[in-house]
C-alpha cells in the first residue's frame, strides 16, 4: 500500500520537501531530541537506560489518554472529561476486583464504562445540538468525578491482584508492560486514522463538517464514535495507573484532560481540526514526560515544574503557528 503512494510523492515539485514541510512533520521530534540532549548534558543520570525506561513508564498513562484526545481534536473538538473518566474507571475496576470479579472481566467492564461515558458525550453533542463539545464534556468532567467520589466514598481502594498490576508495574524482560500497551494502542489508532474510510471521515469532519456531510459522511455517528474512543483510551489509562499505584483512587487523573490536550497540541495537531498524527501525539506525550523527569533529576521543585510546563505548552503552539506561516509563504 505504501509502495503505491510513493510515485505520487516523487512527482511533487521540490518545494513540497522544503524546510517548512519537514519542520511540520518532524518539528516535535526535533524538539524532543534537543530536549533530551540538553537534559543529558545537564544531568548524567538522565541518559541512562533505566531512567529512559522510567520516563516511558511515567508517560504511558498520558500517552494512552492523548491518543483518544487526538482523535477528538482532529474533529475540531475537545474532551475535558478524560481525566474524570479515568478516575471513575480506576475506582470501578478496583472495586469490582475487591468484590471478587476476576481481573479480566473487571478490565472489560472498565473499558465498557469508559466507552459508554464517552458515547454520552458524543450523543449530548450531536443529538441535543449543544453548541460546542466544551459543554457536554465539561459537564461529564464534573459528573464522572463526582460519581467516582460517591462510589469510593472518597477513599482509595488499595491492594489489587498481582495479575492486574502487571499492566501498570510489570515488565516483559526489560520492557515496561505499559509501554507495550501504548505501542499496541498507537498501532491500532495509526491504522484506524490513516488506513480506514472512517479515519478519513474523521479528518474530513475536522476540516469542513459541512462538506463532509454533503459528501455522505454520517457526521453524528462518527462524532459519537470519536468521543467513545476517547472514553476507551481514558479507561486504558485508568488500568495502567491503578496497576502502577496498586490502588483505585477517586482523584486519579485530575488534570489529565489538560496534560492530554497539551501532548496532542505539542505533537502538531490543531484546535481548528483536520490535522494531527499518532506519531506526533506520542512525541508530545514524551516531551511532557521527559520535562517532568528531567526537572525532577535537576531538583527543580514541583511548583517551578508547573511554571516550566505551562511555558512550554504556549511556546510549542506559538512555534507551530510560526511554522504554519512559513509553510504558507513557502
Amino acid at each position, binding site marked *: 500500500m505504501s509502495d503505491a503512494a510513493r510515485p505520487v510523492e516523487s512527482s511533487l515539485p521540490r518545494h513540497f520537501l522544503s524546510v517548512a514541510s519537514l519542520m511540520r512533520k518532524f518539528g516535535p521530534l526535533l524538539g524532543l531530541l534537543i530536549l533530551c540532549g540538553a537534559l543529558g548534558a545537564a544531568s548524567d543520570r538522565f541518559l541512562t537506560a533505566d531512567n529512559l525506561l522510567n520516563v516511558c513508564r511515567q508517560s504511558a498513562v498520558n500517552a494512552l489518554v492523548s491518543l483518544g484526545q487526538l482523535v477528538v481534536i482532529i474533529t475540531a473538538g475537545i474532551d475535558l472529561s478524560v481525566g474524570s473518566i479515568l478516575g471513575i474507571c480506576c475506582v470501578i475496576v478496583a472495586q469490582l476486583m475487591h468484590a471478587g470479579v476476576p481481573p479480566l472481566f473487571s478490565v472489560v467492564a472498565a473499558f465498557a464504562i469508559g466507552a459508554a461515558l464517552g458515547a454520552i458525550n458524543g450523543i449530548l453533542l450531536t443529538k441535543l445540538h449543544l453548541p460546542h463539545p466544551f459543554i457536554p464534556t465539561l459537564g461529564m468532567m464534573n459528573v464522572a468525578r463526582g460519581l467516582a467520589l460517591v462510589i469510593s466514598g472518597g477513599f482509595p481502594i488499595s491492594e489489587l491482584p498481582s495479575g492486574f498490576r502487571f499492566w501498570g508495574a510489570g515488565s516483559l524482560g526489560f520492557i515496561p508492560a505499559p509501554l507495550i500497551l501504548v505501542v499496541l494502542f498507537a498501532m491500532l489508532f495509526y491504522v484506524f486514522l490513516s488506513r480506514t474510510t472512517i479515519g478519513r471521515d474523521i479528518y474530513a469532519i475536522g476540516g*469542513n463538517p459541512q462538506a463532509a456531510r*454533503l459528501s455522505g459522511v454520517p457526521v453524528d455517528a462518527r462524532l459519537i464514535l470519536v468521543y467513545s474512543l476517547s472514553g476507551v483510551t481514558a479507561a486504558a489509562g485508568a488500568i495502567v495507573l491503578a496497576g502502577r499505584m496498586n490502588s483505585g483512587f477517586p482523584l486519579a487523573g485530575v488534570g489529565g484532560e489538560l496534560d492530554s490536550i497539551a501532548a496532542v497540541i505539542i505533537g502538531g495537531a490543531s484546535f481548528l481540526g483536520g490535522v494531527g498524527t499518532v506519531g506526533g501525539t506520542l512525541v508530545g506525550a514524551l516531551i511532557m514526560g521527559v520535562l517532568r523527569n528531567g526537572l525532577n533529576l535537576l531538583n527543580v521543585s514541583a511548583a517551578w515544574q508547573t511554571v516550566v510546563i505551562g511555558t512550554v505548552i504556549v511556546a510549542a503552539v506559538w512555534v507551530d503557528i510560526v511554522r504554519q506561516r512559513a509553510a504558507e509563504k513557502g
Partner: protein
Amino acid sequence: MLRDVSFDVRWGEVHALVGENGAGKSTLMNIVSGVVRPDAGELFFENRPVHLHGPRDAQALGIGFVHQELALVPQMSIAENVFLGRYPSARGFVNRRAMHERARQVLAQLGHDMDPQRPVAELSLAERQLVEIARAVAFESRLLIMDEPTAPLSDHDAQALFHSIRLLCERGVGVIYISHRLKEIFELSDRVTVLRDGRLVLTQPPSAVTQEHLVRAMIGDELKQKLQSVAAASVQTGEALRIEGAVNLSIHKGEIVGLAGLAGAGRTELLEWLFGTGGTHSPAAGIWVNGVPVKVRTPRDAIRHGLALVPDDRKAKGLVLGASVLQNISLAAGRSRFFMRRAQEEQAARQWIGGLRIKVAGLSQHAVHLSGGNQQKIVLAKWLVTGARIFLLDEPTRGIDVGAKAEIYDMIRKLAADGAAVLMSSSELEELMGVADRIVVMHRGQIAGELSHADATEEKIMHLATGGVD
C-alpha cells in the same frame, strides 16, 4: 508575474480588468493598493509619482479596495461596519448620532436609503456588498478597486450595484472593475484591459471590441471553439428524476435542465432538499429516481440513489480545503468498505484529474492552494468517482475564469451525452441559455414557468423570475 504593463484609470471612469486566473490581475491590483511593491516601474497618482509602502499608504491617498470576500462583522450595525476601526468620536466616546448620519449620507450617495442601525446579519448578500462599498466611500476614496463584486449576485442585484457604481463615477470616482462576466463589462465599463500571462493584451473602449474578441484575447485561440454553445439535441431515454408537490419537475436521462431565478427564489433550497440536507421546509412531497419512489433523508441516501450535489459555495460546502486533492476526490466514494483502497483510489483520482484537465502539483497537494476553477473541478471529480447519474449543480461556474468555465460546460455536455441527468442552477442567464436543453424559472420557492432552449430569451426569463405571468 507582470511584464511591460502600462495601465491607467481616469476620474469618473469604470476601467474593467479581465483575464484568466493567473493572468496577473491580482498582482497588478496588489501593486496599486500597496500590498506588493513592484521590482521595476513606477506608479503615478494624480500625475505625481508615488511610492506605496503598504495598504495604509494607498488608503491615505484615497485608493480603496472592495474585496471579493466580504469582511463585515455580522453582529454589528451597518453604520458600525462602515466606520469600523475609525468611528467618529469625541474624547474616546463614539458619537453615535454623527456616525449614523454620515452612514446615511454615504448610502444615499450610492442611491440607497437603508437604515444604518440595522445589523449586517439581517442583510442580503447584495446589501452586504453595498456596505462594503460604502466603507470605501466613507474613507473618501477617489479610486475604487472592485474584485468580482457581482460573483455572488443574481443579474437583478447586479443591476442595482451598477446603478450605485455609476452614481459614484458621476461624482468623479475612478473604478477598476475586475470581473469574469463579460456581459457586464460591455454594460458598465468605459474601457476594458485584457491581461494574459502577465502581459497586457489590449486596452480598448468596449464599443470597439466584440465579446468574442475579448475571449480570444483572454485565452488565446485554442479554447475558443469550446465556448460556442452547442446544446446538442440529446437523446432522451426515460425519466431520471421527478419531484412532485409544491414544485413539480421531471428530468430525463441525457437532459440538461437549467434552473433560473433571482437570489432567494429557492434554487439552492430546492437542490439541497433534493440531496437530503433536511432544511426546515420541503419544497415538494415526493422524489422518484428512475421512476421508483425513494426516500432521501440524508446526503448518504441521495448518494446511494446516484445523486450528486455540486454546492453553490465550494469553499464552505464542497471541499475540505486543508485536505489533499486525493482525500477530497475520494471522500464520497468507497464508504461501504472499512479499509481504504489506496491504489484504486489513486488510479480513479488520476483518471479524472486527466479527464477534467485539473492542474495540480500532485495528489497530495492541498485543495486550498488550487485556483477556483481547479477547485470546482475537484468537487466534480469527487462525484464522477462515485459513478453518480443525476447531477445537481448549484452555480457550478461561480467565480471561475473563462477557460475553466468552458471546460466545465464541456464536461456537463459530455455527462449528458453519456446519459446522465443534469439540473443546473445559475445566476448567469447567458450560461443557462448556452448549456441547458430547457430552462425552469423559479420565483418565491415555486416554479414560475418553463422555456425550451429555442424559446428562451433573457427578457422571457427575467419576466418569469420577477413574478410576471405569461
